């Protein structure tokens, strides 16, 4: 069998090496040599070939068994501590891999002129992007807790340099450090849990050579107290990544200071590791602890929904605003995961994909807008009346915004309604009440999207902006697949739901398995 996943992971690495390594040693002045201007086309080529590989992986994946982890490979990696190189994806993982792989060429294309003309700088930039792609793909494929942890941390390296080195805001270095500190803090707590997990698993009789394998660990009962502690360890790391109130502080800073392309990769894909981890590690490994913590998590998730939306309304910086909207959306995703209903979980999985498309579109279009401003201002107040100047840009922004506010007919609506309806009939105590409490989020979303649109695109054009160029062909090529994807998935969500439905059922079954008492009570109430 062809090792699709390994190839998917390795190919961007090869690309990063080919494109990026040349730029490591050479100084800025030495850029004249070695194929000037090749960095971006080469990186684009690599990322497009990666898309082709992805199509192959989809062809090899059997959607009928989407709940199982397919295309798996397992090789010993560090046998002394039982770490293995184990990859495999279920439907959710495959969709997220697809999201990363599809977004990278778009981001490269969107950032075509963003980083200046210095070839060495460009090589570094695209090299880091490809490196990040490899890590992102790998982390969604990892089926070994140790491998997952290593990749979870390794992703920070390219992300850190992309924020701090290639950002636009004045505070980019500070934002990069903040991002790194938050992520490392979470990672450290997770590491403790990972180590504990290993020893407890070995103590429970798992073969030490396989004690990091998720598939082995799922079957092990580790004891209530230990499970809860480890759940907390994993959850904090994932909540920081997700980001969830109150550990969200790094996100607006990063969104406001990183380049829009970086933010897209970071917030639309990389942060999904948080929710993906909750779904594929926290729930299966610690089902009892997940149920135990669910009421609390759901409360925080709903608070995130409202909090992020309220903060977004008050933002003056366009990119920060988009960052805050993500806090709100991640709240929905987490809410769905912790309802333990197949509907809510499937909705969350689907939403991970949709949020990537919608927020990615919004970030990139906002980036196009900012790149047009003579002073590259991100302040909303510096724009006015642009709809008559740049109608296509305005329209694209509006569509992306409408996707952000989950307009029916777009994919985001399907997932959001699934989460809300699923949460309303969710299992944890108070789930219904919290679901109701989350509904005002849709009104707030309308306010922040339309208010921003109104400020930027309506009224008389601001002085100095009367002659801005409309979306270029390159930029339209970037926006078109995202918008098309949102529309198609809005009317035929089955294309994606096929992949997330079965895993959601399985996940719901896993969290229910340890609670015969509850199940009995439910059966009683059904009668």
């Amino acid at each position, binding site marked *: 069998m062809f090792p699709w996943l390994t190839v998917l992971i390795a190919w961007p690495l090869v690309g990063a090496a080919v494109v990026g390594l040349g730029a490591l040693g050479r100084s800025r002045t030495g850029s004249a040599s070695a194929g000037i201007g090749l960095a971006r086309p080469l990186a684009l080529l690599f990322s497009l070939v990666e898309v082709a590989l992805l199509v192959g992986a989809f062809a090899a994946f059997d959607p009928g068994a989407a709940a199982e982890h397919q295309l798996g490979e397992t090789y010993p990696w560090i046998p002394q501590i039982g770490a293995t190189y184990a990859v495999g994806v279920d439907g959710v993982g495959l969709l997220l891999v697809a999201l990363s792989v599809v977004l990278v060429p778009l981001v490269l294309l969107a950032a075509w002129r963003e980083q200046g003309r210095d070839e060495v700088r460009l090589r570094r930039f695209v090299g880091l992007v490809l490196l990040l792609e490899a890590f992102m793909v790998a982390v969604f494929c990892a089926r070994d807790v140790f491998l997952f942890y290593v990749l979870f941390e390794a992703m920070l390296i390219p992300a850190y340099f992309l924020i701090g080195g290639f950002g636009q805001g004045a505070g980019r270095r500070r934002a990069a450090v903040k991002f790194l500190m938050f992520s490392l803090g979470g990672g450290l707590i997770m590491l403790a849990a990972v180590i504990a997990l290993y020893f407890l698993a070995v103590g429970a009789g798992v073969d030490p050579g396989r004690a990091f394998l998720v598939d082995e660990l799922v079957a092990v009962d580790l004891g209530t107290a230990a499970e809860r502690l480890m759940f907390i360890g994993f959850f904090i790391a994932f909540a920081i990544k997700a980001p969830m109130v109150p550990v969200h502080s790094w996100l607006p800073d990063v969104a406001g200071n990183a380049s829009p392309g970086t933010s897209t990769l970071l917030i639309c894909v990389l942060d999904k590791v948080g929710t993906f981890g909750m779904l594929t590690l926290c729930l299966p490994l610690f089902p009892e602890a997940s149920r135990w913590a669910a009421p609390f998590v759901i409360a925080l998730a709903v608070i995130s929904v409202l909090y992020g939306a309220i903060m977004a309304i*008050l933002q003056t910086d366009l990119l920060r605003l988009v960052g805050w909207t993500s806090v709100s959306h991640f709240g929905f995703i987490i809410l769905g995961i912790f309802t333990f209903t197949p*509907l809510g979980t499937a909705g969350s999985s689907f939403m991970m994909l949709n949020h990537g498309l919608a927020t990615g579109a919004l970030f990139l279009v906002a980036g196009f807008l900012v790149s047009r401003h003579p002073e590259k201002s991100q302040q909303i107040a510096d724009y006015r009346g642009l709809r008559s100047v740049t109608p296509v840009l305005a329209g694209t922004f509006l569509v992306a915004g409408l996707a952000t506010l989950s307009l*029916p007919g777009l994919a985001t*609506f399907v997932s959001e309604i699934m989460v809300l309806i699923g949460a309303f009939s969710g299992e944890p105590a108070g789930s219904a009440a919290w679901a*109701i409490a989350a509904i005002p989020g849709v009104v707030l979303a309308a306010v922040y999207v339309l*208010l921003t649109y109104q400020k930027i695109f309506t*009224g008389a*054009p601001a002085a100095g902006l009367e002659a801005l160029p409309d979306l270029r062909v390159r930029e339209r090529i970037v926006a078109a697949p995202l918008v098309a994807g949102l529309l198609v998935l809005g009317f*035929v969500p089955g294309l994606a739901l096929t992949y997330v439905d079965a895993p959601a059922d399985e996940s719901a079954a896993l969290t229910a398995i340890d609670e015969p008492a509850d199940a009995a009570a439910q059966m009683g109430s059904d009668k």
Partner: protein
Amino acid sequence: MNDVIGLAPWLVGFPLIGAAILLLGGKATDRWGHWLGVLASAASGVVGFILMFRMIGMPAEERSVDHHLWTWLSAGDLDVDLGIRLDPLSLTFVMLVTFVGTLIHVYSVAYMDHDPHRRRFFAYLNLFVAAMLTLVLADSYLLLFVGWEGVGLASYLLIGFWDTGRPAARENAVAAKKAFVMNRVGDMGLIAAMALLFANTGALDFATTLSDDGVGSLSQATATAVGLCLLLAACGKSAQFPLQAWLGDAMAGPTPVSALIHAATMVTAGVYLMVRSGPILEAAPTAQLVVVLVGAVTLLFGAVVGTAKDDIKKALAASTMSQIGYMMLAAGLGPAGYAFAIFHLLTHGFFKAGLFLGAGSVMHAMGDETDMRRYGGLSRFLPITWITMGLGWLAILGIPPFSGFWSKDGIIEAAFIPVDGQPWRAWVFGSVTVLGAAITAFYMTRLFFMTFGGRRPRWKDNRHPHEGSPLMWWPLVFLGVGSAALGAVLGIGGTFTTWLEPVVGHAEHHEPVLPVPVIMTVTILVVVLGALLAFRMYAVNVVPEEAPRGSVLTRAARRDLYQDAANETLVMRPALGLARVVEAGDREVVDRGWAALPQTVSWFGSVFRRAQSGYVRSYAAGMAGGVLVIAVVAWLVGGLGGAQ
């Protein structure tokens, strides 16, 4: 039926494709784009006609067909198909939307002739038609919601159609946003209702949820909750109290939009929702009572506001609000009222669209002047508009035999029927509807004569009002004829009621608290009185060009009974205050809190740093002291040097 059911998706498909072509086609479609828009709408109408004739030919009990297209959403326990429900109710709407819609498309070709963005306008109109048809044809609440928000989007785009270019355009954008956001407030209700329905019945399609089993599985409290949530949604969409504030501002859009969306079709979607959800409401009498209350309050609210408005479009908007109040009230009365709610919706769609298009014609003639105090004596200059608006005026007044009489009188009679043996409700709501009819007569007469009556024109001399192109007045004629005749055609012999019966159920006949002829006479009497009063004030007397200060009530009505101030004080200010508190909290507490962590670490560092004096002897003292402490501790704990 099965041979033509395949056409049903094209009802939505034609306008949707039209919108897509016009939006994506860009400037290339500028030349013929508007005709494509008309064609798409008309094609949809033709399909609607075919389907309706086939349905009329079917036995009554088979007049409900669900056409499944594809599985839309299937996850977990939720299974929703993308499907179309064809029944008398939806087809009535299809006919209203496509017929009136097509007329307004034609009208717009001329009305928007000079607008450089006419193509975009038609794209939005087509989008609206597609969304509205999705709304009424949907076979599940979820798909209904798609149309529901789709028309909201179209409304948003069209209200804000002139939202850029000049500084004042910002206000149009604000109005558009206000409409969308207030609609979203209502939409929360629909989402909550869907959540409740799914939690209790496990489905969202009408076939399951509205069946006897589906409704039966709802407890009384749940049904009430679902009913109230649906009512909230309806209030938002139909500009009912307390979510009515957006409709007046929505008049910022081009007049054809006001006619199509904010008078004839979209705003009545709330009534459609209520009637469609009838089985649920019937299981929840409390919710029904609230529906009637909301309808009654809005009915009076809109009527009162309408008497004071000098802006012709805002006066018509207030009137729309009030008329929908009638429909809502009827929808809350149960099966007895459903048919009349929809009947009035239909006739109202015709005469109000006619009135709005007439107003558009007047504005077109007067250089976009909307203040009626600047009109007067226009009947000589705009005869066609005068006559067609006159028909609409008589229709909305409920003068027999014009169409409004048949539908509104039915509602008034239904309101006088006691519910659950509670005559007080019949008296209260019956009186309200009669009072509303009187005020309606007053303000519509006022509007009509301020515009067309009066001996002396009040506009500036350099204006030369004249009728627009035939493209503009032919739709007026059609609508005028509809205003005049539709009621009689459908109302005599209860044709329409029978037509709707398969959907809304058969209403058992109850006697009103007053005999029907008495109600009818009283109603016509008060209507004529109100009209005469207005005639005396605005046709016989001279209308001042500047609005007099007026009484307290007039001033309040001019300001929409302080709805904006109330919203601002009760909702916006507290919400904004809360938001600022949250924002300050995030900045000062959360962000600072996290920043305090590294600060604490570095504070400890600076403290411990002081110990690093660099003096070897200090270090030596530390070491010696440490040794000493360890020795003492070891001694105390381990008994160092204890007896061997």
